[in-house]
C-alpha cells in the first residue's frame, strides 16, 4: 500500500505491505535506524517514536496506520549537536551500550514537552515502560530530572 506521512518535518512517501510495522517501515524503507527494535511485542520500549506529538511504540503500530500523521524519530530531535536532553544523558552517564537510549530519549522528550515540571515519581512512572539492562535506571532518572529546566524555558517562550 502507498502511504505518505510527515517524518521529522519533511513529507515522505513509501510503499509497504499492510503488515509492516511502523518501526520496520522507518528502519527499512526510510533508513531511520535510530529507532531500535528490541522485543517487537510492546514490552521493552526501545522503538518509541512520537506520532502527532505522543509517544507510542512503533512495533505496535502498522505503518499504514501512520498515513497522514506527523512522525518524529530520535533523529528528528537534534541536528548536528546534541539536544539538551541528549547532552544531559551524556553528562549523567545515562547510557552505556545505547540500545535502549532512543526509546528513553523520545519518551522523556514527549513527557517533558507536555509536563516540564514532572517530578521524580512521575518520571519513574512514565519510564517504567522502557527497559535498560546497563545503567540500573538511576542515572537515566537523574538525566531527565536535570533536563527539565530546558523544557520549562521552551514552554515559557511558547
Amino acid at each position, binding site marked *: *500500500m502507498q502511504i505518505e506521512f510527515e517524518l521529522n518535518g519533511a513529507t515522505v512517501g513509501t510503499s509497504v*505491505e*499492510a*503488515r509492516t*510495522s511502523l518501526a*520496520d517501515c522507518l528502519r527499512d524503507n526510510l533508513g531511520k535506524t535510530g529507532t531500535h527494535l528490541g*522485543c*517487537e*511485542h*510492546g514490552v521493552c*520500549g526501545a522503538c*518509541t517514536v512520537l506520532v502527532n506529538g*505522543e*509517544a*507510542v*511504540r512503533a*512495533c*505496535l*503500530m*502498522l505503518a*499504514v*496506520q501512520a498515513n497522514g500523521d506527523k512522525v518524529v524519530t530520535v533523529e528528528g530531535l537534534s541536528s548536528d549537536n546534541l539536544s539538551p536532553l541528549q547532552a544531559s544523558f551524556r553528562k549523567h552517564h545515562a547510557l552505556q551500550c545505547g540500545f535502549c537510549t532512543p526509546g528513553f530519549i523520545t*519518551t522523556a522528550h514527549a*513527557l517533558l514537552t507536555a509536563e516540564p515540571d514532572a517530578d521524580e515519581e512521575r518520571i519513574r*512512572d*512514565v*519510564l*517504567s*515502560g522502557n527497559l535498560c539492562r546497563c545503567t540500573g535506571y538511576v542515572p537515566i532518572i537523574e538525566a531527565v530530572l536535570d533536563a527539565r529546566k530546558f523544557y520549562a524555558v521552551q514552554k515559557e517562550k511558547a
Partner: protein
Amino acid sequence: MKPSAFEYASPATLEEAVSLLHAGNGNAKIISGGQSLMPMMAFRLAVPEFLVDLKHIPDLNIIRIADDGVHLGARVRWCDIAGDARLLTAHPLLAEAVTHVAHYQIRNRGTVGGSLAHADPSAEMPGVALTCDALLTIIGSSGTRIEKASAFFTGPLQTTLEADEILTELHLPAWPAARRWAFKEFARRKGDFAMAGVALFYDLDGNGRAENAHIGAIGVSDCPIRLGAAEAALNGNVVDDNTIAAVAAAARAEIDPPSDIHAPAAYRRALVGTLLARGLTQSAG
C-alpha cells in the same frame, strides 16, 4: 516476530466496517489501538486475513457524562480517561482502575473497546465493567444489541462478540457522590498486568451499614468474576475490622485461582484477601 500477511481497510462508517467484517467470513478482525492485537499477531496467535481499522469512524472516542452515568466510546484511550478530570467525581473507581493499565506509550493508543473485546482475565477495564453492572452497546449485521457485562465475558480472551460485531460503547451506571469504593491490584512492575486485583463499592444505609455491595476480582479466574460470598458478608454490616476480616475470608474461600509462573494459587488466594482488606479499610476511612 512478524505478523502474517493481511489486507487492511480504514472505513469511514460503522456500517461499512460491519459489512467488511461480515464479508471476511470469520477471518476479518477489528484493529483499534493495536496494543493487544499487534503482539498477538507478532506471536502468530492471531492470524487475521483482513484488518478493519476503526480510526476514521467518527464519534467513537467520546466520553459522555450524563444523568444515567458515564458513556465511554469504544475508541476512548487510557490517556483520554486519565486526562478527563470530570471522571474523578463522575466515576472515581474507573479513574483509579485505569491508572494501573499498561505503560505511558501503550496508554496513548490502547482503548476501552479493545480491552473489553480482548478480555484478558487480568485486565482492569473488564473487571470494572463487571463490578459496576455496565452495559455494552454492540453493532453487527443483524442490528444493535445491548449486552450486560455479566453476560459478555465467557472465558479467557472470549466474549459473546460475533465475528461481524463491533463494540461501540460502554455505559457505566450513575455513581452517587457518597458511594464508598476502592480499587487495589498487585503487579510485579507498575503498568504490567496484575497478578490479582479487586474492585469494590457499596453504599451506606441510614445506620451506617453497607448495602448494595459490589465486589469484583481480576486475575483469579478465566474472566473477571464477582465475589458473591464476600458481597453477602459485607451487606448489612458496619465496615469495621471484624467485617473486613469476614469479607476477606469469604473471598479467599470462594475463589479458585490458577497457578502459573508468576504465582501459585495459594499466593493469589492470599493476595485477594489482602487487597480486599486494604481496599475496604481505605473505603471506610
